[in-house]
């Protein structure tokens, strides 16, 4: 009798252990829905980009009846956090949109698939080799750039024109920008711009205009606390005058156009990336236009052409070939290009860029014209930021919050940031 009991116990224990194992493995198995390969594809963006992406994906599914694509998107900040959690758990989506800041970290972390292995279905011949190289880490093609973007001053055209303040022009400097936003605030009664102090991107443009960079070639901090204190003193001064948005508005920025002061009708202009600015069209009824970012006082341009985003495939995907087919379709298919327009930046496939250029209309044409106006005038882009930059972007916003809520002086906050950044980059 005792023997039986022990056996029963063992059997049930084994059964339970198996259940636990089965449950644990469920996520990583092949995901098959009705005999189809199911891919997960995630990106960040605005509703305009989402609508066009959904249409493109529907076209892809039509052409590939054996593949079904589950999509999901969110604002950049939320996307960044979610992807980090998924990737660390080995559950990264099959196809994911990546930022320049994420590639280094995810490539060296084994999250991304070597795309050269799928070159039979994923064609890269049409992409400029210099641009293509931005998706390589240690010589391996982990990601492929999807578009080219640059920063812009995006503004409410009607309000600006009606105010009588001269419109922004190419080659304007930061001090000219400052007097414009001051005048706008005077004439229109609302801040002339979003406070750019919280944006590491805007700071980079300002810094490059002074001939410096965020990071050195060896991945160390390329500026000092003095530089940052000067930038924050500049923006904080404008905030105190009411020329740029107040802290209560600035703190709500989360990478979505809806939560910018311009999007809420609480400021006349904003600094943003050119392609995502299409999102303002739906929420700024009076219309928007794009102007170049201000330059340094000697005319040195700070903005640059940057691979606006990349596509990568998860190293743990069960459908590497299908995922590569989707990436190829998004990059190289003329039908897809027609729907996507420049929602992710100017297309990287040269043939597609030339073919679609005359077909672009509305805001897509605005972005294309804007980039054309800067062609040949900008300096070379910096190399991919070191992996700590991903976290530092958030730290930058947090530290500026301390300044704009007047809990720290620009100098104190700048010194804090530099200390934190050095620790982050060291580890």
């Amino acid at each position, binding site marked *: 009798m005792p023997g039986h009991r022990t056996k*029963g116990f063992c059997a049930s224990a084994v059964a339970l252990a198996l259940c636990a194992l089965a449950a644990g493995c469920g996520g990583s198995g092949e995901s098959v829905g009705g005999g189809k390969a199911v891919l997960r594809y995630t990106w960040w963006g605005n509703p305009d980009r989402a609508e066009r992406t959904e249409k493109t994906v529907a076209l892809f599914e039509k052409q590939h009846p054996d593949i079904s694509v589950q999509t999901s998107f969110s604002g950049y900040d939320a996307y960044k956090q979610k992807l980090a*959690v998924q990737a660390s758990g080995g559950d990264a989506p099959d196809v994911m949109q990546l930022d320049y800041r994420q590639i280094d*970290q995810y490539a060296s972390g084994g999250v991304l698939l070597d795309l050269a292995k799928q070159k039979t279905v994923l064609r890269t011949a049409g992409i400029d080799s210099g641009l293509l190289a931005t998706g390589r880490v240690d010589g391996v093609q982990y990601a492929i750039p999807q578009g080219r973007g640059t920063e812009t001053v995006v503004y409410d055209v009607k309000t600006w024109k009606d105010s009588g303040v001269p419109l922004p022009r190419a080659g304007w400097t930061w001090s000219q920008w400052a007097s414009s936003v001051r005048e706008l605030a005077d004439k229109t009664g609302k801040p002339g711009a979003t406070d750019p102090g919280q944006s590491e991107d805007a700071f980079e443009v300002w810094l490059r205009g002074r001939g410096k960079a965020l990071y050195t070639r060896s991945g160390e901090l390329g500026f000092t606390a003095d530089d940052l204190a000067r930038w924050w003193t500049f923006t904080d001064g404008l905030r105190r005058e009411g020329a740029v948005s107040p802290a*209560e508005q600035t703190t709500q920025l989360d990478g979505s156009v809806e939560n910018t002061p311009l999007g809420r009708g609480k400021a006349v202009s904003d600094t943003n990336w050119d392609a995502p600015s299409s999102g303002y069209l739906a929420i700024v009824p009076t219309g928007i236009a794009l102007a170049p970012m201000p330059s340094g006082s000697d005319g040195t341009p700070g903005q640059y052409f940057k691979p606006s985003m990349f596509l990568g495939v998860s190293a743990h995907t069960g459908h590497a070939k299908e995922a590569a087919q989707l990436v190829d379709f998004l990059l190289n298919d003329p039908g897809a290009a027609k729907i996507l327009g420049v929602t992710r930046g100017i297309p990287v496939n040269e043939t597609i860029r030339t073919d679609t250029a005359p077909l672009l209309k509305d805001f897509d044409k605005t972005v294309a014209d804007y980039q054309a106006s800067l062609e040949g005038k900008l300096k070379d882009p910096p190399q991919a930021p070191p992996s700590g930059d991903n976290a530092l972007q958030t730290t930058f916003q*947090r530290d500026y919050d301390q300044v704009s809520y007047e809990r720290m002086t620009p100098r104190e906050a700048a010194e804090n940031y530099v200390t934190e950044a050095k620790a982050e980059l060291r580890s």
Partner: protein
Amino acid sequence: MTTTAIPTARERAEATTPKRRPQREREGAAWVFLSPWVLGASVLTLLPMAVSLYLSFTDYNLFDPPHWVGLRNYTQMFTEDPRYWRSVLTTVTYVVIAVPLQLALALVVALALKSMKRGKAFYRSAFYAPSLLGASMSIALVWRAVFNDGGTVDNLLGTGGWVNQPGWSLLAVALLTVWQFGAPMVIFLAGLQQIPAELYEAAAVDGAGRWRQFLSVTVPMLSPVLFFNLVLQTIQAFQVFTPAFAVSAGKGGPADSTLVYTMYLYDRGFVASHMGYASAMAWVLLLVIGVVTAVLFRTSRSWVFYASEGDR
């Protein structure tokens, strides 16, 4: 002693059962019944805890293998990280605001319900409902909308959006917790109903008014329940995450004013990918909660009255 003619109850019981099963066999059965829990506790709790203790002495970015750094995470936390200390201060402020407010409200409502003649069941459920809903993300998001600029509170009081004012944002988070007073309320209500009515009658005969009855009968008789709720809610409050995360839109802002301990822990672990540092923070939190609970138990000797101990 010689045995008496009449067998004791125990002897009778032993005589009727055929034979006691060997100790081991009985343990086996116990293990079978315990196995779901044991498996869950060891695989889902103890093992991850052991791993996190190990990771707290390493530098681990989730992707590369952990790298042993000894006590560096702990020294960095205590000596080089001002944001860490800000998050500690924020959490303590939160605990000190949210726990007493929530318990006071729970007690007041429980007292009111106790003396209600009609509709008690309805109100009890109605007040309990937020405890069921409150933990959900959707309610926290609604909360953010209510306290945002242009939201309900702004329109009614003209205060502007609390969630964007560093002086008020933590209060908005605390109020979300206070609003979920239903759980301690139900426990208070059960405690109140246990107090024998004759104690109140005796007090009334002695000429005690309502307030006097509350202080001299209700409070001492309820003190074990009060203590239980206090310990439970304090432990939970130290680990507050969801309300702070949702109400600050995942940022712990403005100006770090809602960056409570677990939010900063999450930020270090999942945003900055410093899992070693985050693990170290988690262990410090565990120790602190342990110490605070021990202190509460120690002070309880002077104010908690257990009727079973009789008159001391």
